[in-house]
């Protein structure tokens, strides 16, 4: 187990293999070797670290395509790791657009927390940033992309394109689309 200390001085006992998904913490552990010394995380608050490291009532397994297989009911006996730590970058890329209940709650309920988590994940250097799934998850668009209007709604973004400007962007992107 590894002892982590957050910016608001809370302490967390966490499994080593979980926290080692963070490159920052992994490097710190390598530097200090076998030690009971707590690892300070001055840029991460306790509420955020809980989201990042604590077992959730979320899914437990990922199939070969990266989709979560189990439901919340199975996780009572076998608590899972939060998805932020669960997947490698490659796995994240391969993910389909399925969404777990846990994710949905996580993503849609608290945008402020989401912002904090992204910053924390960046600081901790966790490649499988949860934020990378914003657009894939929460969507039922199995094959295609999430439409721009949905993204606008999700993140409260105003469309400041004129139809002509939008057409222009399409034209300029033609070389790269459908490849």
């Amino acid at each position, binding site marked *: 187990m590894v002892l982590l200390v957050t910016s608001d001085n809370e302490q967390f006992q966490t499994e080593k293999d979980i926290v080692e998904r963070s490159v920052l913490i992994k490097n710190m552990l390598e530097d200090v070797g076998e030690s009971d010394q707590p690892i300070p995380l001055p840029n991460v608050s306790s509420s955020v670290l809980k989201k990042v490291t604590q077992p959730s009532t979320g899914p437990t397994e990922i199939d070969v395509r990266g989709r979560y297989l189990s439901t919340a009911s199975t996780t009572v006996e076998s608590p899972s790791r939060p998805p932020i730590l669960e997947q490698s970058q490659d796995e*994240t890329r391969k993910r389909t657009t399925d969404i777990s209940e846990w994710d949905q709650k996580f993503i849609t309920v608290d945008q402020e927390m989401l912002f904090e988590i992204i910053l924390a994940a960046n600081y901790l250097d966790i490649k499988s940033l949860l934020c990378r799934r914003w657009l894939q998850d929460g969507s039922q668009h199995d094959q295609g992309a999430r439409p721009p209007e949905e993204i606008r709604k999700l993140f409260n973004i105003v469309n*400041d394109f004129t139809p002509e400007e939008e057409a222009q962007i399409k034209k*300029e992107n033609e070389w790269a689309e459908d490849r």
Partner: protein
Amino acid sequence: MPDPSLHFDSAPTGTVTERLPFDILIDIIESLPKKDQFSLCYVSQGWSEVCLFVINRVVLLRSVREAKAFLLGVQTKPGRAVAIRSFAIAEYLYPRIESIKILLEDVIKLMIPHLQHLSVPSDLLGAFTLHHGTFPNLISYNCNPYTYSEPHPDVTFIGFLKRHPDLTNLCVRALGNASTSPTLLRVHLPNLQWFDGDAKFLPALTTQQLREARLTWSWGDDFEQPIVALRSMASPGMPFASINNGINYERERRYLVEALATHLPNLKTLHMRAAINVGWLEEDTLEYFTTQLPRFKRLRYFAIEDMLSYRSAFRSEHQIMHPVVVNWARVCPTLEACCIHQFCFKKNGGEWVFCTRKEFHDLTGGALWNKFK
């Protein structure tokens, strides 16, 4: 990481997104599937600029219409050029690009500070860039086709290469059969690891750590001089050499093999590729290789191919080639795998067994049929 000087005309808006640093946003967008990246492009002006920063990192233009639209977009918003790390135009487009040549030259100028990989012939770079432009981050340049002038390689092109000593990969291939003539021009590219192109260009280069050479020969080429040049570039031994023989006269092929055996006896991989259909190898050709292979002291992978080597291989034919390979392995015990046209063999527990061309390619470390990087 984005360039610190990166400036977007408008920032992405949104409750969470507007507060995120650009480098994190770009990191996020990079990891999204392409379709989502494009979708984000149409969300708002700010998002469009950030997404284009990601999408435009590697640009390959394949039609004049697409090229024109893209280039005009960059010309209108020059900040977009900052994103482009790799820029290429499909080779088949070169003859049709005259109508947008000036536009292309202008946009290439905008890319100069950040470009790392460039695949545009020198005569399309524009006079200013060719004579004075220095791409400070350029590590890979594909000049195919290279238009030879006399004396060749010409002063301007060599001057361009001299301004880019960090190049690790270089492709210089002439249009058609340029005549050969000795050159006194030299350029030192200390980091060059990968050369693909005309053998006659090789004596113009000096370097010490070349790892792969893919040489194309034309009728009338001097065989000795490029191979001697190659010897001085690779130390202690050239790991890989691919010989594209555009002539395919048996006599020339033998000159090449002898020059290689004499000057590069430590080659690890030798790939002899004829640019025409050679057909079934004659008995005396096979015998010739049997006499030459022992001269290569560290040869592990040996391939002879012609332009139709992708033809189907029948097991019965495999069996005909098997004794040939076994014999080669006897005289050249370092051999681990061989490819004779479509027939591939590998050593497996002391026995020589059939393998696929893919397996053979993988055994060579994926070097055999790689395109320019």
